[in-house]
């Protein structure tokens, strides 16, 4: 608050004060109030300063994105000369990030470090390094891992780390892996549709038990949704043996998700909403890849004029914009992909093939911007986690579908990483490292 002309000035958030000043201008023009009164009203309010907490979160988001880009760029530089390296050196390089993450964990224990940022960084670095090491060893020896083996090896190997760090990113990361394993478990298109339906259903019990703050009700909610989800998968697969692998994996991930993370943490108060969101986002990421649409549209059984698609796209964009402006983005995120996907199935024959993936990409970015913005404004870490991870996955998805040389992509990601880290530093210095 401030003082001018002896009046106490009221600090108001920037969007609201702009709205108010526009209204005052309008009242003046309409003659409702005099210019003097307008000036008096304007002088009564002042734009609130950006809170330090939001600066901190914003800086953290940009820095994490930047570090991720720099790491990806470095990996690409190594990939560029990978084939010229000796086999032993290649194995050693594959294990090097993993060894680095062990040193990080050791330092965490030795210095009894309990700050959130270091715990999350150590756990996510270990998870990423394990995925990377396993993938590179698979590439060196031409091992065709099944997704089930890949998933179980990683989750089993990194499980003790979550006990040490109580990491949220570990649970989110394994949740994403689980979704990938689900998609890989059979015919691609059918699995995607079933996945989208089942993860949407995950939200239902959580909404039913919206007051479920105690442990028993949480477990009940999880079990109900997992049972429902698994039934759908079983029906889809004709009770295929691989479904039996998915079932215990889901229960296991659920127990870990509920137990291993501190119950006081906001992120896991509504775990089913989180899981549902991850599943929806995964479906959206896949929707940005043109070849995936080729698989999906095989299941389109109806055909209608192109205007339906145009209408669908307009509705989708409007809802996305509405979601951003009104802050009800999660509710609409559940609805919008459904509309776009269903209409896309109908209209794919009448529009150029690039339009659908581009529309989905636009929608995805809008939703992620809304998530990060909502998280920063309301200082809710869970939305920022989702938005940040979403951005990372979008970058990876775009990276996978890009068709430019390795060297050029390495340079692109290094440049992008440098810019993002610089933005993070500009916002709030290195304060996030000290929390």
């Amino acid at each position, binding site marked *: 608050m401030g003082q001018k002309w002896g009046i106490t000035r009221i600090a108001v958030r920037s969007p609201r004060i702009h709205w108010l000043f526009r209204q005052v201008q309008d009242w003046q023009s309409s003659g409702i109030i005099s210019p003097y009164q307008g000036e008096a009203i304007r002088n009564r309010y002042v734009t609130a300063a950006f809170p330090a907490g939001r600066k901190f979160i914003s800086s953290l988001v940009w820095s994490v994105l930047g570090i991720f880009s720099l790491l990806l760029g470095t990996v690409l530089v190594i*990939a560029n000369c990978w084939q010229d390296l000796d086999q032993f050196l290649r194995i050693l390089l594959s294990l090097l990030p993993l060894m680095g993450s062990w040193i990080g964990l050791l330092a965490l224990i030795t210095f009894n470090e309990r700050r959130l940022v270091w715990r999350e960084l150590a756990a996510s670095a270990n998870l990423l390094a394990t995925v990377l*090491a396993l993938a590179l*060893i698979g*590439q060196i*020896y031409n091992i*065709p891992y099944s997704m089930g083996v890949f998933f179980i090896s990683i989750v*089993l*190997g990194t499980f003790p780390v979550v006990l040490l760090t109580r990491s949220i990113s570990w649970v989110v990361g394994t949740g994403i892996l689980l979704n990938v394993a689900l998609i890989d478990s059979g015919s691609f298109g059918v699995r995607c549709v079933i996945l989208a339906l089942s993860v949407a259903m995950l939200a239902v019990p959580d909404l039913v038990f919206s007051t479920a703050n105690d442990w028993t009700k949480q477990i009940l909610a999880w079990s109900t949704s997992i049972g429902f989800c698994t039934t759908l998968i079983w029906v889809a697969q004709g009770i295929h043996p691989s479904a039996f692998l998915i079932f215990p994996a889901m229960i296991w991930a659920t127990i870990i998700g509920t137990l*291993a993370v501190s119950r006081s943490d906001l992120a896991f108060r509504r775990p089913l909403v989180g899981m549902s969101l991850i599943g929806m986002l995964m479906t959206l990421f896949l929707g940005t890849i043109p070849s995936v649409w080729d698989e999906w549209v095989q299941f389109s059984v109806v055909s209608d004029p192109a205007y339906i698609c145009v209408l669908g796209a307009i509705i989708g964009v409007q809802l996305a914009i509405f979601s951003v402006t009104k802050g009800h983005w999660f509710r609409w995120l559940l609805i919008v992909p459904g509309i776009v996907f269903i209409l896309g199935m109908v209209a794919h024959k009448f529009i150029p093939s690039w339009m659908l993936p581009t529309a989905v990409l636009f929608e995805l970015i809008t939703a992620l911007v809304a998530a990060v913005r909502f998280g920063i404004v309301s200082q809710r870490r869970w939305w920022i986690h989702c938005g940040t991870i979403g951005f990372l996955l979008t970058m990876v998805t775009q990276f996978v579908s890009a068709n430019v040389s390795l060297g050029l992509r390495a340079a692109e990601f290094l440049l992008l990483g440098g810019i993002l880290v610089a933005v993070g530093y500009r916002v709030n210095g290195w304060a996030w490292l000290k929390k």
Partner: protein
Amino acid sequence: MVKKIRLILSAWLDRVTDVATPMAVLVVAIGLQLGVMLVHIIESEWTLHYGEMIKLAIDPIDPFDPFRGAYFEFIPQVFRHSFPSRQPMSVGDQVIVVAVDPKRTQWAISADRPRSNQPYFRLTIKSANGNNFFIAPPFRRVILDDESKQIVKEAFGNGRSPKHGAIYLLVRQRGDHAMIQGIQVGNRVIEQN
């Protein structure tokens, strides 16, 4: 009852995370992670050293990889054709393919377990069309350096007139495990592992 279980689990979690021996947990984590990696490395090296060598004629296709750019993927001809089956099969089922001639150019589905000295591949059904089905190869893609790529391209007539059978995949097979040893182009062998 539920309360009791909850208390026991919470106490156990607190013990592991707060009080007991985080260093021991880290050692277990490192052991597990290293173990997972070593299992894959040792199993692969063992097959490469002690597995039986099998030559399989290959066709090339050249897809795209985000980390490697354009590359060759060699799928042995024997795995690219569909296999007829008398019994219904579904995607994800496993079948055993055995060599039916001494030169090992002809392979067929076997209902029985292979004999002890008979080479075989245990493969997963990738797609099915009626009673015919296609199987996934037992190894991943092969990535070549620029020089080897050129040799292979020339052997295949630069993609204009593929000379089937001109190139062989050298595979080491042992039990259920199969590893690519190299690629044979004429008399020349491009080592892979």
